């Protein structure tokens, strides 16, 4: 697919040859995630997170299909049906905790995957399309996670639905009609719950489809690597299988270890106790916050507290929040530096870590009550977030003098040696 020296699929068994003639599906898999896909030899563990995200999606789809066998999407009995899953369905507690914590694992893995792309310049040419499709997947994931959180029909579900659909009412003139259209009513109720369930079931399969496009687009130039230097020849790559299947297997083991710790020892650590109270349209919880993975964006939403330029604060907040994600679509063209990896970008490297710190501050501010000093903190952090992409990045990429790049991946890995030598046999 990507490189001429990729190993060719040559089935030995007559049955596999027969299948290959009629429907070359094993060949497709072989070329996509098998020995037929040559991958740079120097990928580190940060490259595990793409496969782990795919794994998390599989966990969510499997547990989700099972939960849908027991869940009732009706405002009158949704909460009870979730409690029935927890108490009466065989292993239902485990399946529901796996699904709710699986969402957290999925988002966590994807955030690391995104920051890995930012650090190593994986969004740059020739991989812009990979990045754009990744942002689409991220948006779909956010929509899916939000609608899934509404389904248990607890207090946080209800008021989350109220607040998030309220974003749309900020749109001038047509905002309120749009919100009523989305909800099928004037407040979240049975109509909203039913359509959220329908879409929550649909979107993961749409995500799976966009992931196929994401991988397809990736396989045209091939994977990036920690040096960001292009693959020059066969000596720079190893086959995906068995080298990276085993490395990803190691990562998958750690992933499932952390996942099991959450599910079995702290299943409600990342949730809100208020969501174990049935939805009550007459009483808002005292401290309403989204799930942890939305907090940085929630902080940007809350950062706008006054009207200016004739635009109300509410609309500013909603535009900024959506803008903070849509901005990522322009990233490949905002960063003009031809050097991909931060290893060879002495100035950008620091601003990358400043962005990581900024997102952590936004996360903290987003989870804090709407009072000083948190509001001010969130405002500064939100301003810095936009400044990073719109001001700092273009300037740094224009002025920065990158470090000398290695001539090839192999040179970077072996330090000038032609052949890798086992430890102990290296020249002193």
């Amino acid at each position, binding site marked *: 697919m990507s490189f001429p020296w990729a190993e060719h699929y040559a089935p030995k068994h007559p049955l596999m040859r027969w299948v290959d003639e009629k429907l070359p599906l094993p060949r497709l898999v072989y070329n996509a995630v098998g020995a037929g896909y040559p991958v740079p030899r120097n990928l580190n563990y940060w490259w595990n997170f793409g496969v782990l995200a795919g794994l998390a999606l599989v966990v969510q789809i*499997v547990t989700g299909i*099972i939960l849908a*066998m*027991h869940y009732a999407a009706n405002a009158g009995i949704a909460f009870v049906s979730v409690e*029935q899953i927890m*108490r*009466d*369905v*065989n*292993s*239902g507690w*485990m*399946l529901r905790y796996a699904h709710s914590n699986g969402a957290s694992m999925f988002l966590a893995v994807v955030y690391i995957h995104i920051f890995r792309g930012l650090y190593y310049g994986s969004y740059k040419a020739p991989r812009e399309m990979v990045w754009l499709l990744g942002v689409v997947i991220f948006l779909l994931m956010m929509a899916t996670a939000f609608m899934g959180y509404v389904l248990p029909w607890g207090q946080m579900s209800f008021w989350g639905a109220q607040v998030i659909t309220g974003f749309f009412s900020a749109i001038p003139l047509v905002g309120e009609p749009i919100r009523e259209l989305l909800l099928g009513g004037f407040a979240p109720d049975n109509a909203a719950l039913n359509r959220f369930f329908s879409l929550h079931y649909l979107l993961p399969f749409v995500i799976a489809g966009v992931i196929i496009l994401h991988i397809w687009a990736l396989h045209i130039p091939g994977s990036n690597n920690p040096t960001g230097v292009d693959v020059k020849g066969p000596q720079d790559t190893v086959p995906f299988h068995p080298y990276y299947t085993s490395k990803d*297997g190691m990562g998958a*083991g750690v992933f*499932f270890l952390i996942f099991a710790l959450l599910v079995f020892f702290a299943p409600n650590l990342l949730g809100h106790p208020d969501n174990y109270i049935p939805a009550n349209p007459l009483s808002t919880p005292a401290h309403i916050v989204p799930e942890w993975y939305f907090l940085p964006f929630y902080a940007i939403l809350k950062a706008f507290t006054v009207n200016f330029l004739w635009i109300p604060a509410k609309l500013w907040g909603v535009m900024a929040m959506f803008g903070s994600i849509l901005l990522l679509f322009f990233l490949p063209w905002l960063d003009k530096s031809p050097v991909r990896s931060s290893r060879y970008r002495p100035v950008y490297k620091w601003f990358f870590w400043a962005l990581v710190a900024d997102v952590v501050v936004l996360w903290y501010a987003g989870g804090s009550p709407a009072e000083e000093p948190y509001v001010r903190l969130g405002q500064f952090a939100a301003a810095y977030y936009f400044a990073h992409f719109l001001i700092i990045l273009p300037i740094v990429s224009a002025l920065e003098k990158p470090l000398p790049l290695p001539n090839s991946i192999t040179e970077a890995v072996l330090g000038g040696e032609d052949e890798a030598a*086992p*430890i*102990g*046999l290296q020249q002193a």
Partner: protein
Amino acid sequence: MATPEQTMDPNHRPPVIAGTHEEGQGVRRRDFINIAAVSFAGVGAVAVAIPLVNQMNPSADVLALASIEVDISKIAEGQAIKTMWRKQPVFIRNLTAKEIAEADAVPVATLRDPQTLAERTKEGHKNWLITLGVCTHLGCVPLGAGEGENRGDFGGYFCPCHGSSYDTAARIRKGPAPKNLTVPEYAFKSDTVVQIG
């Protein structure tokens, strides 16, 4: 088989194993790790699959509906009622002396599913025939418990789906059903109250 200790030191080639080529065709340390790791993951996958399938079995709230009490004092001789147990119909029939005599007159050895009426009722309550109203062929509800319904060729129950006829002890006599109508687990709490399940 080479032990891990023998091959741990990269300065030494793995010892040549009897019956194999010197190119290291035996079970190498890497093969051993590979097989062990994949087997371990396989066992884990099977362990995870068990609850994923078991969740489809009846849940605790379904199992909790497993017992009912029925007042039979209003059922006159020759009458039958239908009730529900575990979401399935149950027939409770007060047999007449003639029906009991008919049932007892049948040679048991000639039956498809040989059972006497006494075996299918409780001692001292031989007139109370309690069975599931579920045909043992493919699960339809047989006729005969309601007033004026077709009781088939043998005066018991008749399944309209595929024509199975049951006699006055609800034993299969004609048609495709393989078994007699099932007698559920039940007990007389008093002469007029039956607990089913």
